[in-house]
Each structure stands twice: as C-alpha cells, then as structure tokens.
C-alpha cells in the first residue's frame, strides 16, 4: 500500500492528459472540415453566437456531429470494456460479437416493414436487435467444452453475423426501396446527424453508464477468476447480467445513432488499461475519455483524407482497428 500515493497521482495525471486530448479532439472536430475555421473563430461562435457563415456551420452541423461523436465513442468504449470484463476475453467487442449486426438487422426490418425512417425512430429497434444478438452469441459460445473462449465468441459472432446478413439480404432483395436508405446508415458515420438524435439517446447512455459503473467492483473480482470472485462474495451471475444489459443498452444507443462502428470497443479498453492499470473504477472513466478521442479523430481524418468526399468514421475506425487486433492476437505465442 506504500506505493499507493504516487500511483494515484500518476493516474490523476494520466486522466488530466486524457481530458486535454479529448478537448483537443473536440476542437479539431469543430474546426476542421470542408472549410477550416480558426480555433479562435470556433470559440467565438460557441461563446458569442453570431450569424456569420462560420458560426452557422459550426452550430448547425459540427456541434451536433461532435456531440454525437462524444456520446457514441464513450458508449462503445464502455460497452467494450464491460464485455471484455464479463467474458474475461481480450477480443470482445460489440462488432466482433455480432451485437452491432443484431442492431443493424432490427433497423433494416424497421425501415422495410414498420415504416420508420428517422434516426430517432431506429433506437428502440436497435436495442431489441442488440439484446437478442448478444444473448444468442453468448449462449452459443458458452456451451460445450472450455466455456466462452475468445475464438468461440468470435466465431459465434461470425455465425450470427452471417445469419443476420442473410436476413438483411432477403429483406433488401424483396423490398428494394429499403436499400437506398439502409446503405448510408450501414456504413457507420456521425456525419449529418441532427441535434435531436443526441437528445434522444442521452437517457440511454446515462442508464447504461450507471449499470456499467455499478458492476466495476464485480468486474475486478471476476478478473481474478470465477471461483475467486465467488469466494470474495461476488454474485458472478448478477455481475454478468447487469454488465451485459449495460453493454447492450450502450451498444444499441450507439449503433442507433451512428450505425455499426467497428473496433472502438475492442481497442479503447486495451489503451485504457495500458494507461491506468486493471482497476475497473479507473479503466471505465478512462475508456469513456479515450473512446470519443478515437472516434472524433477518425472522423476528422476521414474528412480531410479525400476532399471533397468524406470517408465515414466507421470505415476509419475499422482500418485503425485491424492492426490493433493483429498485434493483440500475435502478442500471445499460442492464443487461447
């Protein structure tokens, strides 16, 4: 315990650095784009309003986009952290586990058969789909020998993915009108979202975050192994269920708002753990800070890469995420 004070100050320092990084990425997200606006003008537009072109662009387009980036980044990062904790599995991620795809399919069905065409309308369907998919994948992977090993979870996710993609295809082939709307949502992006979307999803983010934070201690115990956790008096089943619901709510809200954005939930928890250690009471807030940084930076890079077009954030995060997964898998000589 003698080492506690310096470690605490190091963690506080790291947290402060993460906050600075977050503020910088917010500033970038507000300033950079088809037309670059000077940071001073950005601050001016935010603080004093005004009706110049720059001020309008920032208030009408970039602020909602940035706010949604913040929310979705935090949601996916928290969801990934909890999923990795409850499955005790370093490659858990809403995308790999098929949870995002579950939300996607529900959205397709909503577009094609329920006549729902607004992003705000998608959110409930996204939840339902995410919940069903996450339960299905976990049920598949935990059966059989060895329980929910990384590769079984990934494969269960791949299987559910394939099944859901075929459902999506059957719908899109018979209901061609849905495709035009769906293809733009499917790619995963935070561009062109209205401020209303943020208003709609924040309660879900709050609920999800509360659930997730409430199991932080349980996740720490679970990290020591199931038996040890039980010995420490943790109700392992309750931790898994509450954490799973939290992750599902967060993923559903994130996917409804921004589409299936890949790999944020995979990479961010690892970065957060590398910075603050394995204590979930530190990892969770750190992930909530780093997640938005990754998403906003991906989004900004996507904006400037091939002007005048944009590469959606979902594609950028996938491209950034692959090297991450490769490193992670290769680090172990023989993966479990």
């Amino acid at each position, binding site marked *: 315990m003698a080492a506690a004070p310096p470690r605490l100050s190091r963690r506080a320092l790291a947290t402060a650095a993460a906050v600075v990084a977050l503020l910088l990425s917010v500033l970038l997200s507000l300033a950079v784009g088809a037309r670059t606006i000077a940071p001073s003008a950005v601050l001016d537009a935010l603080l004093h309003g005004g009706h110049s072109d720059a001020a309008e662009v920032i208030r009408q387009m970039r602020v909602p986009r940035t706010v949604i980036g913040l929310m979705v980044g935090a949601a996916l990062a928290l969801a990934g952290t909890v999923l990795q904790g409850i499955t005790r599995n370093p*490659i858990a991620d809403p*995308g*790999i586990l098929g949870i995002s795809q579950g939300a996607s399919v529900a959205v397709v069905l909503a577009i094609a058969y329920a006549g729902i065409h607004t992003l705000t309308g998608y959110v409930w369907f996204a939840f339902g789909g995410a919940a069903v998919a996450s339960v299905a994948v976990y049920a*598949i*992977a935990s*059966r*059989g*020998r*060895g329980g929910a*090993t*990384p*590769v*079984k979870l*990934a*494969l*269960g*996710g*791949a*299987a*559910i993915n*394939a*099944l859901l*993609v*075929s459902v999506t*295809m*059957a719908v*899109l*082939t*018979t209901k*061609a009108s849905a*495709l*035009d709307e769906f*293809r*733009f949502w*499917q*790619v*995963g992006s935070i561009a062109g979202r209205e401020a209303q979307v943020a208003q709609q999803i924040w309660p879900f983010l709050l609920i999800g975050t509360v659930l997730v934070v409430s199991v932080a201690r349980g996740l720490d115990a679970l990290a020591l192994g199931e038996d040890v956790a039980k010995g420490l008096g943790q109700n392992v089943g309750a931790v898994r269920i509450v954490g799973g619901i939290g992750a599902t709510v967060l993923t559903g809200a994130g996917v409804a708002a921004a589409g299936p954005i*890949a*790999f944020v939930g995979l990479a961010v928890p690892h970065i957060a753990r590398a910075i603050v250690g394995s204590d979930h009471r530190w990892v969770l807030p750190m992930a909530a800070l780093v997640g938005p940084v990754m998403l906003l930076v991906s989004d900004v890079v996507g904006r400037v890469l091939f002007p005048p*077009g944009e*590469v*959606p954030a*979902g*594609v950028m995060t*996938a*491209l950034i*995420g*692959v090297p991450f*997964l*490769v490193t992670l*898998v*290769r680090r172990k*000589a*023989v*993966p*479990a």
Partner: protein
Amino acid sequence: MSADTAVPVRTPVRPAGYRVVRVGKRGRLLVHRRAGLVAAALAVLLAAVCVAYLCVGESFVAPAEVVKVVIGQPSPDELVVGTLRLPRMVVGLLVGTAFGIAGALIQTVARNPLASPDIIGISQGASALTVGAMTFGLTSYTVLPYLSVVGGVAAAALVYAFAWRGGLHATRFVLIGIGFAIALRSVTTLFLTKGDYLVAQQAQIWMTGSLNGRGWDEAAPIGWALLVLLPAVLWAAWAQRTVSMDDDTATALGVRLGRVRLGLVALGVVLASVATGTAGPVDFVALLAPQIARRMTRTAQIPLLCSALLGAVIVVFADLLARRLFSPTELPVGVLTAAVGAPYLIWLIIRGHGGRAGGNA
C-alpha cells in the same frame, strides 16, 4: 481384402478400408472403399438434382424433354431449358465444385472446419475489390471475376502473412481472418455509398452470391480455370495425405511441410476466388460441403472428390429453391446457403470445434 488384380501389389502397408486401384502399368491409387461408394451415390444425386433444376421453373418441363434438349435433339422446350436454365445450372455446378474443393483444402491445412473462405476474409477481399470496381463504373462481367480473384488472393495473403509466426497456428489464423473480414466489409460498405442506387443494388445482390443472369459467358472462364487447375487439384489430393500426418512423421519422411501447406492454401484460395468472381461470395458452401462429405465417408482426411460433388449439389439445389421459393421474386442463392449454413456453423461451435487449435475430428 486382397486387391482384385492377378499381379501382386508391392505396397504391403495398406490402411484399413482402402483398396488399391491400378492405373496403367505403374500407377497405383489408394482408394477409400466407402468414399468411392459415397462419390458414386453423390454423382447420382447430383444428376437427379440437375434434372429437377431443368424441369422446374416458371413452366414445368417434363424430364423426357429435358433429356432430349441436353443430348441435343430437337424439342419445343429448347429455349426454356437449353437457353435459360441449362447455362445457369452449369455455372452453379462449376461454382459449387470450386467452393467444395477450396473449402476442403483450406480446412485440411488449418485442421479446423471453421477456417473457411467466407470467415477468414477471402470472400470479403474479393467483395471489396469487385464492389469498388462496380462503383467506379466497371460493370463488365468479363473483367470483374478477375478483380475478384485478385482481391481474394490479396486478402488471403495478408491474413496468412500476419498470422504467420514461426508456424501457422489455426486459431491465430481464424482470429486475424475475422478481423480482416470486418475491416474489408466496412470498406465494401463505403463503396456502396459512393455509387448510385442501381449500382448499389446490383452490388448488394452480387455480394450475397447470386446466379441470376449467369450464362455461358460466365461458365466459360470458370470452366477453363478448373480445367487448368486440374493437375494442381490432383497433386493436392496426393499432398493432402502428407499434410494430415503429424509434423514429426512428415518431416522424418522428408516432406517439406511448410511448402506443401502453402501450396494447398494457395490452390484453395485461388479456387474460392474464382468461384466468388463468377457468382459472388456464396456463403457457407466451402464450409458445409467438406464437413458433410467427411461425415458421409467417415475418413480421417477430408475427401476432395466428395466435397466437390457435394458443393455442386448444394449450390444447384439452393439455386433451384432460390428461384422458386418467393417466385416471382428470385432470391440470391447465397441467402439460402447462409440460412442453412449459419445454424450448422453454430452447431459446430457448440460441439466444441472452435476451442481447440488442431484436429478436425
């Protein structure tokens, strides 16, 4: 159990259940008895499915007329059967064969039924390049298949390179493949948003795997490709056995395992990519066919011929259903193979195939 030839055979060690077939003066082939029977049965089944495919459609054509058309006699159903259904069926047949063999080879090397082309990124690589080309205005069905081959091979090479670490570990191969599959899929979706609506629709159907509108023009390239690759496939049938030995035995016998494995994977990837180029990534055929074939023949290694025949049966039968199930709407054939294949994959995982590195028992 003696060979039914008068000349004594010099191979004294013959695995149980195998018989020796002499080819010419010196050639000898070890043939698994049961596998031979299964192959014959599958060939009959395939013929039946093919006749059914030609009979059933918008209008029913009697089997007798179908046979007349196929053997080239004049018939009133010449147009429907000979021009519309037959070429499409031949394409399905070839695609299924290629996927069946590809799956068998890749699964043999990975020693894992889950390392199928549609899971480890090969299909997604082919899709990304093809859909990208379609988006930028290339719609010629004579060029697209080649791009698809390039995309599939490139993706496989990347996965292979990144998964290689002093050896090819099956689990690492699968995990890295899944990662690449996700990233490539998102690149494909990006292309989908770039093109106009009609291109997106066309690409989306292609991506599911479809035989709609395929004819002799599509049958010719894949037919030639299979013919050219035939010697390689025969080599693979021989090499397969050396690979399924354990590493020490094979090395002691002087087999260069690394190279043989690479050769088998390369052949499998090329076949899968060629098939994908022709019909799009028809899901799960490469996974299903070899596994069912192995269970039917009860061999330790995955039987190539039976996998090829089963692949053809699956694709032709699934396309028959895809044409008729929601008629007049034609579903892409891949929807049906996925609907059957995904539950099977789930069953495989539950049975515990995913948890271990090696062994395909």
